[in-house]
């Protein structure tokens, strides 16, 4: 049993390592073809980040982590929630509008705003879920459309509620009262910058995701539906209800994506609020193989590449967009590598089982009985 576990672990690690190597090679080739300095680029990217950057990497990963967990909830039952991007926008906007009013005292204001974000994200995703179960609309299509609608809707509403007293030309919601801000942790020495307090939220969601999926009846039903919808139906799972619930849950987590930014950095929702978090989440969920720990590594890697890439332009004279190439190749390679490794693993296990059985004493080979 132990040996099997070790091999499984080896197989699980083989794929991402392979993907990283492929990304390294492909990027190097791109740099060579473009006539850019290969060694200098990798030196910049692989240098040990300074404390200020370490904080930025952790903070970036905190946000990505939530987004990837939201996507992973859908992935575990073969639902492709491409709409995390729209869901976090709608949620962050709704929460920011409420929190900015400061109707409730400090911590309570944070808690209720968080709740509003969760509900808003869930409802926005719920539209796609409802369309799927009632009308058979593919969630891929509907969530992409809902992303576009979310962007438009939020921009439109933002203009209506924009805080005009700030006197700046940046449009944003009313800034949070100081008492409603989540203080950071001075985790990294050597820099005044602090790690988001909401890193705890990410950890909590990660643990919750793992517990619900692996330890509860509901999680079992959800995974069963993802593995084989036909078998799940025959086992008594109400697949429609499962689809709706999973979409709502995915949306609820998506609703939290913007919260570390809102309460720990921006203190309002505006036109400069970080975009594209939902799409990064898809890539990271793939990279982390929907596993809470894997996603953690994936989120850190993503954030690391982006932060280290920021210096490319200044230090090496290469556009920092290079990082997008690396990220893209990693995702492509990792998807292929996982499939290759999965098949190899299946074959290995089948052979292994057959061998172990034929070693057993007695009439253990069913074929012999047939022949």
């Amino acid at each position, binding site marked *: *049993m132990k040996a*099997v576990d070790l091999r499984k672990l080896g197989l699980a690690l083989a794929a991402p390592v392979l993907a990283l190597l492929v990304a390294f090679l492909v990027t190097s080739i791109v740099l060579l073809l473009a006539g850019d300095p290969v060694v200098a680029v990798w030196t910049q990217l692989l240098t040990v980040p300074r404390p200020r950057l370490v904080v930025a990497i952790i903070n970036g990963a905190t946000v990505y982590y939530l987004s990837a967990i939201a996507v992973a909830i859908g992935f575990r039952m073969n639902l492709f929630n491409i709409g995390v991007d729209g869901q976090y926008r709608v949620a962050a906007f709704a929460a920011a509008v409420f929190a900015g009013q400061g109707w409730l005292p400090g911590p309570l204001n944070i808690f209720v705003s968080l709740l509003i974000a969760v509900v808003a994200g869930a409802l926005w995703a719920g539209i796609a879920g409802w369309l799927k179960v009632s009308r058979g609309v593919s969630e891929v299509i509907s969530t992409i459309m809902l992303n576009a609608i979310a962007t438009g809707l939020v921009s439109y509403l933002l203009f209506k509620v924009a805080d005009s007293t700030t006197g700046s030309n940046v449009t944003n919601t009313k800034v949070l009262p100081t008492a409603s801000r989540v203080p950071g942790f001075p985790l990294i020495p050597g820099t005044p910058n602090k790690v988001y307090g909401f890193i705890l939220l990410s950890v909590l969601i990660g643990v919750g995701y793992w517990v619900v999926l*692996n*330890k*509860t*009846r*509901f*999680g*079992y*039903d959800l*995974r*069963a539906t993802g*593995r*084989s919808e*036909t*078998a799940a*139906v*025959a*086992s*008594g*799972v*109400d697949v429609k209800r499962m689809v709706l619930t999973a979409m709502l849950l995915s949306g609820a987590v998506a609703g939290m994506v913007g919260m570390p930014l809102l309460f720990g950095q921006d203190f309002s929702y505006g036109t400069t609020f970080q975009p594209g978090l939902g799409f990064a989440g898809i890539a990271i969920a793939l990279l982390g193989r929907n596993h809470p720990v894997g996603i953690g590594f994936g989120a850190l890697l993503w954030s690391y590449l982006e932060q280290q890439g920021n210096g490319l332009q200044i230090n090496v004279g290469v556009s920092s967009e290079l990082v997008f190439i690396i990220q893209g190749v990693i995702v492509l390679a990792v998807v292929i590598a996982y499939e290759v490794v999965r098949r190899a693993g*299946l074959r290995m*296990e*089948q052979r*292994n*089982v*057959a061998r*172990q*059985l034929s070693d*057993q004493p007695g*009439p*253990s080979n*069913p*074929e012999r*009985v*047939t*022949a």
Partner: protein
Amino acid sequence: MCAITDSAQSAVNAGSTIAPAVELRGITKRFPGVVANKDVTFSVPRGTVHAIVGENGAGKSTLMKILYGVQRADEGTISVDGAAVSLHSPSDAIDVGIGMVFQHFMLADNLTVLENVVLGAEKRHGIADRARAEIVRISGEYSLDVHPDDLVADLGVGRRQRVEILKVLYRGAKTLILDEPTAVLVPQEVDELFDNLRELKSEGLTVIFISHKLDEVLSVADSITVMRRGTTVATVDPKSVTSRQLAELMVGSELPSPSTEVSTVTDRPILTIAGLVLAEAEGRDILHDINLTIHAGEVLGVAGVEGNGQAELVEAIMGMREPSAGRILLEDKDISDWHTREIREAGVGYIPEDRQRHALLLDAPLWENVMLGHQTQTPNVRGIWVDAAGAKAETERIAAEYDVRTPSIYVTAHSLSGGNQQKLIVGREMSHTPRVLVAAHPTRGVDVGAQAAIWEQIKKARREGLAVLLISADLDELIGLSDTIRVILRGQLSGDFDPGVVTAEDLGAAMTGAV
């Protein structure tokens, strides 16, 4: 019987002197733990229609995949025109003149016939006028009535099939394999297809025709090979057999010694179905006015050729299909509008027909599979929590008690052989003290050892007072296990047959509607 044209007749006669178009000798194909084909041997003379019949799971499709180069045989030889060939891929097969017409058409609707035909064969006659002329020539030569510039989307099913046939002829096939070609056709189209086949034959082509519809086979084939449990059991002349005899060969007539066990049938009805109807949007009902009662300790066997409503009957009982009318009673409770989960919790065990799709999570470890279908019941869960320890202990027990041969309960279901998968499923279903067991083809695709074990379990269930609904295509199994046998044909149930006196002939006749 069938109109054999002169040229075909001469081809048949000549077959004794010239090498057969296709000859298979000792073809054996093993999948992990299961023998899909075993010592398959037959030969097809050029210019004849040769039918291969057998129940689903008899090994026909594996055989065809081997013949078409999709899979390779572990043993045995294939000869084409007397020369041994080695087929590694479909393109090897087409190179030696073997073409396949699949049951599910592989045509692009939004392209024309011409475009579909040349797709992938552009090198043959180009993609324009030469190809068009060739299509017109083939269509004319074999009376296929196919026009190169028609849009495939506008064509009916029968004509699409002829496009498929033309496609393989265009690629130079001399031997055509047709996989269940009549399954998608209405009767008139079937007649047209058979005319086409006779035309092909008269032009010296060879047709291998796979089916389980005996009447059709008898009307079109020059010779018939019967497959059962992966091997060829006989090759017969259609002029000298009846469809009853064929049915017997297909499902096996060597009956096991009659069940020596005393009847355990009680007068306590456990499962009662009254006036059950499953209507389809158009046409006739899938199930029409089904009435049956199964008592405690009774095995009710349902015989029938695949696709006559048995799968739907099972799904209706399990709550996976909503009946249009009628009632399903579990003892005295009406469960017809219950959800699948409630029905399973109420004590209905279920062994689905397609275990890989409906009974297993192939990528999940065995202990998670043991939970499947019982994920709301002890020992698998405690409240809302999965009780992994309980489920694992239960899996160890089932593996030992039901002789599931596996090195560990942590391997995936995928890595077990079919027979061991099925023993695990049977064990799982029997472990929750069911009152009813719905078993659809419980021994399909499993080895003989597992088959005997599963039969023993069903007998044990009967002794313990379960009501068992046994759906099977294997008459040995039905006659050996059942207390009562009913035959399902076109969604309707026949009257009772007594397994003590009924013959496989009687059942075969009732199954094919030949009574």
